[in-house]
């Protein structure tokens, strides 16, 4: 299993029976492939579906059935369609148990920046802000360092925020970290990665409990 797939599989393990879950565009959407087929989970997409079945097989696409990322999907038995106001009522009203989102930067205090890079990328916030601010649990799924080798986990975000202090857990190819009131806790480490390597790749101090570190 690649380190990316291990990260996706690890995030999928936090999706438990009965949850309603929104998987953000990009990497988070792929977590879907690692949720057990018999796990009773309701996948929400903010363009107006609860009960995403999966990606539509090639040639089987319904032109009216996409997810928020624009990919053709299927509707699972027991799924439903609704308008965009109901869709975000579900998000803001406390019915979304978990969302997994991508990040440009994520901070030790739970701040998330994933929608604008001033002067470079500003195409609108879409649904990210409400997912980040209002899902009961917010997980961030990201490579631990960016393509230039810089840490994506920082003490404080430098980019404009999507939401303040919203992130509960960060899943990367190297580690799982939890945002807590006393700091960013390293709670799991990828197999074959050392604590020193994680510290080196992280732009914020890590709280590490005594005893053996669980791996994934």
């Amino acid at each position, binding site marked *: 299993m690649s380190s990316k797939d291990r990260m996706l599989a690890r995030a999928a393990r936090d999706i438990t029976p009965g949850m309603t879950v929104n998987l953000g565009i990009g990497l988070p959407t792929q977590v879907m492939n690692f949720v057990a087929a018999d796990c009773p989970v*309701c996948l*929400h997409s903010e363009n107006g579906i*609860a009960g995403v079945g999966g990606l539509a097989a090639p040639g089987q696409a319904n032109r009216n059935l996409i997810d928020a990322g624009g990919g053709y999907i299927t509707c*699972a*038995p*027991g799924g439903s369609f*609704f308008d965009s106001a109901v869709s975000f*009522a579900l998000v803001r009203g406390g*019915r979304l148990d978990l969302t997994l989102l991508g990040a440009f930067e994520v901070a030790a205090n739970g701040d998330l920046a994933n929608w604008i890079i001033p002067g470079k990328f500003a195409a609108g916030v879409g649904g990210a802000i409400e997912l980040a601010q209002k899902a009961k649990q917010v997980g961030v799924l990201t490579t631990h360092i960016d393509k230039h080798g810089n840490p994506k986990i920082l003490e404080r975000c430098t980019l404009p925020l999507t939401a303040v202090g919203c992130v509960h857990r960060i899943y990367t190819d190297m580690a799982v970290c939890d945002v807590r009131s006393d700091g960013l806790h390293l709670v799991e480490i990828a197999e074959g990665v050392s604590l020193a390597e994680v510290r080196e790749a992280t732009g914020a101090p890590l709280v590490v409990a005594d005893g053996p570190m669980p791996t994934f």
Partner: protein
Amino acid sequence: MPALDKSAGLTEAIARIGDGARVMIGGFGVPGTPFCLIEELVRRGPKNLTIIKNDANEPGMGVDWLLSAGMVKRLITSHVGLNGNAIRMMNAGEIEVEFVAQGILAERIRIAGAGLKGFVSDIGMGTLLAEGKQRLEIDGETYLFEPAIEADFALVHAARADAGGNLVYEATARNFNPLMAMAAECTIAEAETIVPVGEIGPDAVHTPAPFVDHLVALAELPEVYGVVKR
């Protein structure tokens, strides 16, 4: 992925409602009123409830059972004109009543379901219905702030449901039910018929399953539902 089965027993579902709970109850008159859930709530007997319902039903029906059992501290409603018992209890100070214009009541419930703080309206300006409400200046004019009405529980009545919790209402029995199902912390639905998951088409769902926590199947409907015994 399969849907979670939300089926629950009547007793078990209603047992969650304790003293002091804020309980929304669907229905406009008889249609859409979840009489069986209310009856079990009376049997259970929590006190000091805040009840949110469009109307107080009629004497000897639905909400009136809760009033007569002395379980209601406060009633938030649009009118109680068909229930002389509710009017008597209100005038005697046995219950507090907050009257809200019907569409404003619907919208205050909906805005809670939408996870928002409230909305801004001109309904009632210049009348005593505006008294006591927070005023806001917007674009140089004065408006009223209408706060979201949240609740701990919603009791709703559906004609049909699938085991995963998707609900379909019938005719004017829809009324406040879908709004309340979205607004409460915990939504308990009773359904006349429960069909296997997949039998309700996804375009035909009125209340999507994620808004429903517990689903109670009704046996034969008692006469209070307007069922004519032949």
